[in-house]
């Protein structure tokens, strides 16, 4: 009964549609050109992508984002001077960029959260983040509910949240668990192990296993969520990623060095050069392929079809079938117009 249904008009008599018949094709029609048409259309309109990075300061968030998108996307904070004030609460800084590659224009927004986990008392420090994410859903909902709508509603919803885990080698911290527990229900969380060059291979595998187990025990569903696998193909592919690769242990760098005659991104240390894009050194390439080359569209779709819809349903239900109010909420009526 709590559906918002406009007054029904008298429905005209419409004949029932028969079941689809598989028609035999006797010649070329040209239906497959729709793929090209669609591709052209999307390239013209461009894409939006909003990525949020969360983690304690000094874990290499900005460097990683710069490495991911191969440009100076975020300015690194070079640490606070003693005279500068440490921010009292978690700030949310969203910076937008336009990048283009291969004819594809992307509007990338990186949302940084300086101050997360940096105070002495970090209780509820995920609340500003959760509030920000919900605010973006709210903005989108308001636009969608308008009578005269824009042709393309600007999408500021957070599509992906990279959560940086400190490479202690032991297990997850309580703050990590709390954050992920609260936010895995509203946004796609991808946990990454930062500064992975501090662990040896064995330490890395053990740590990853422990982290995976802890996440499972606490019921934290990170992206790709099991329940949203659409078909068998997706499931097997995602299972492999979930159970073996995630969380990705990454190293970021925006400096280039000469290795074996090639210029590669890496970190120079006295005992050797850690190549960022070398799969034997760290899993950055896996993360990049996962987030950008294969699952970018899926991240956006899960955000739109599942997280946003959940938010919308909750909002409309709380308001008794009405779209959200800016003033105080009304009594909880399960009615409709």
């Amino acid at each position: 009964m709590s559906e918002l249904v406009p007054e029904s008009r008298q429905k005209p008599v419409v004949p029932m549609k028969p079941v689809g018949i598989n028609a035999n094709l006797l010649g070329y029609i040209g239906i497959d050109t729709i793929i090209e048409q669609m591709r052209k259309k999307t390239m013209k309109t461009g894409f939006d992508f909003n990525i949020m990075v969360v983690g304690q300061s000094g874990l290499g968030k900005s460097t990683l984002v710069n490495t991911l998108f191969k440009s100076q996307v975020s300015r690194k904070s070079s640490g606070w001077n003693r005279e500068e004030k440490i921010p009292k609460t978690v700030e949310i800084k969203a910076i937008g960029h336009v990048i283009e590659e291969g004819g594809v224009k992307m509007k990338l927004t990186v949302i940084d959260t300086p101050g997360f986990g940096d105070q002495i008392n970090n209780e509820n420090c995920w609340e500003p983040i959760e509030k920000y994410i919900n605010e973006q859903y709210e903005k989108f909902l308001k636009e969608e509910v308008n009578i005269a709508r824009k042709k393309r509603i600007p999408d500021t919803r957070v599509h992906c949240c990279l959560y940086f885990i400190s490479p202690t080698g032991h297990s997850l911290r309580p703050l990590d668990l709390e954050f992920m527990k609260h936010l895995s229900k509203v946004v796609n969380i991808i946990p990454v192990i930062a500064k992975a060059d501090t662990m040896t291979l064995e330490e890395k595998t053990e740590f990853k296993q422990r982290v995976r187990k802890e996440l499972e025990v606490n019921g934290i569903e990170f992206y790709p969520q099991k329940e949203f696998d659409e078909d068998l193909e997706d499931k097997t592919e995602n299972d492999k990623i979930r159970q073996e690769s995630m969380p990705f242990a990454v190293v970021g760098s925006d400096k280039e060095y000469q290795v074996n005659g090639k210029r590669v991104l890496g970190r120079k240390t006295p005992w050797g050069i850690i190549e960022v894009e070398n799969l034997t050194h760290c899993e950055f390439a896996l993360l990049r392929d996962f987030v950008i080359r294969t699952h970018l569209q899926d991240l956006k779709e899960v955000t739109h079809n599942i997280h946003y819809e959940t938010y919308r349903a909750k909002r409309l239900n709380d308001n008794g079938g009405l779209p959200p109010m800016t003033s105080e909420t009304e009594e909880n009526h399960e009615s409709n117009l």
Partner: protein
Amino acid sequence: MAGAGQPQKDGLRSLSLSGHVGFDTLPDQLVNKSIKQGFCFNILCIGETGSGKSTLINSLFNTSFDDSMSTHFHPNVRLKAQRYELHESNVRLKLTVVSTVGFGDQINKEDSYQPIVDYIDAQFEAYLQEELKIKRSIFNYHDTRIHVCLYIISPTGHSLKTLDLLTMKRLDSKVNIIPLIGKADSISKTELQQFKRKLISELVSSGIHIYQFPTDDEVVSQINTIMNGHLPFAVVGSTEVVKIGNKMVKARQYPWGVVQVENENHCDFVKLREMLICTNMEDLIEQTHTRHYELYRRCRLQEMGFRDTDHENKPVSLQEAYEAKRRKFYLELQRREEETRQKFVQRVKEKEAVLKEAEQRIQAKFEHLMLMHQEEKLKLEKKRKALEEEIALFNMKKANAELLQTQPMVSTPVSLKRDKDRKNSSFT
């Protein structure tokens, strides 16, 4: 290394990449998802009975969907919808073809276009209702909205019929109309040019907006502009094949020659197929969603009483309008409830009054009867008394008479004195 960002007009920095990031696969990702989901395309075919609709559809999609010919004797216009799933390479298309049945056959054609308009509106309505639900699954929704309307004009060679004008006028704001000239092999080339020019000028002067192929994309703008000049397409459909040279082609065989469907010199069928399917299918779907559906939605919501700005021209959010409407509705509901209750109380009172009155009448009657009864009783009592007295008197008389009769039997001397006494006594 990465370049510094230059600020753009909307406050966004544009960055240059120092290496291959890889998001140029994004269109491919999108396309893969869409392929998995499959595509939906809905065509509405309007034309008089016998104008060649079914044959045209069969020729366009290289299949024979429905073989039966329809009669001319339908009492009113109906719509017949058929759904098909077509596969080509890895593309799955869910095609729905809706044709009119009996269009233009009736003697009185006033209501001919109404079923069509109602059908299109019903599809929009279904989508709107799904969109307004709380728990909705709009990405799984099977889109039934009509994406294109192929309007088949009869090849009279003169001008548009009134029915065509009226119908197209009603539909041009609801659906993308592509006008076609059906059975074009009955017109010669020169007549055809004249006819097309006449049709276009009539459409323009009546203010009917037909679908224009989009010319904003450089890749397709040139060909689209050319095609726009060829509208309305003169098409010929055929499902029979004829051997020409050493190929089997779709054609119509006449004693004087063969009309080849796919020959551009003979008719515009190939142009139609190009434009409809190969070049602009996506644009048709998009126009339906962003223009026609949005217009319908706007009108519908305004009909229901929602506005974006109130009478003082301040922006009113939909939610406030909703809230006001809900309050009004509740007040109305309460008022009606009160009214009904009042009415009920009133009726009860009236009934009570009636019953009371009846009761009083009956009471009066009862008392009246009682009175009468009493009177009767008294009367009867009197009569009885009178009767009893009579009886007593009669008895006395009878006793006296009997006594007198028995007296003479007794002897006299003894009783002379007695007689004398008695005589004397009887005299006294």
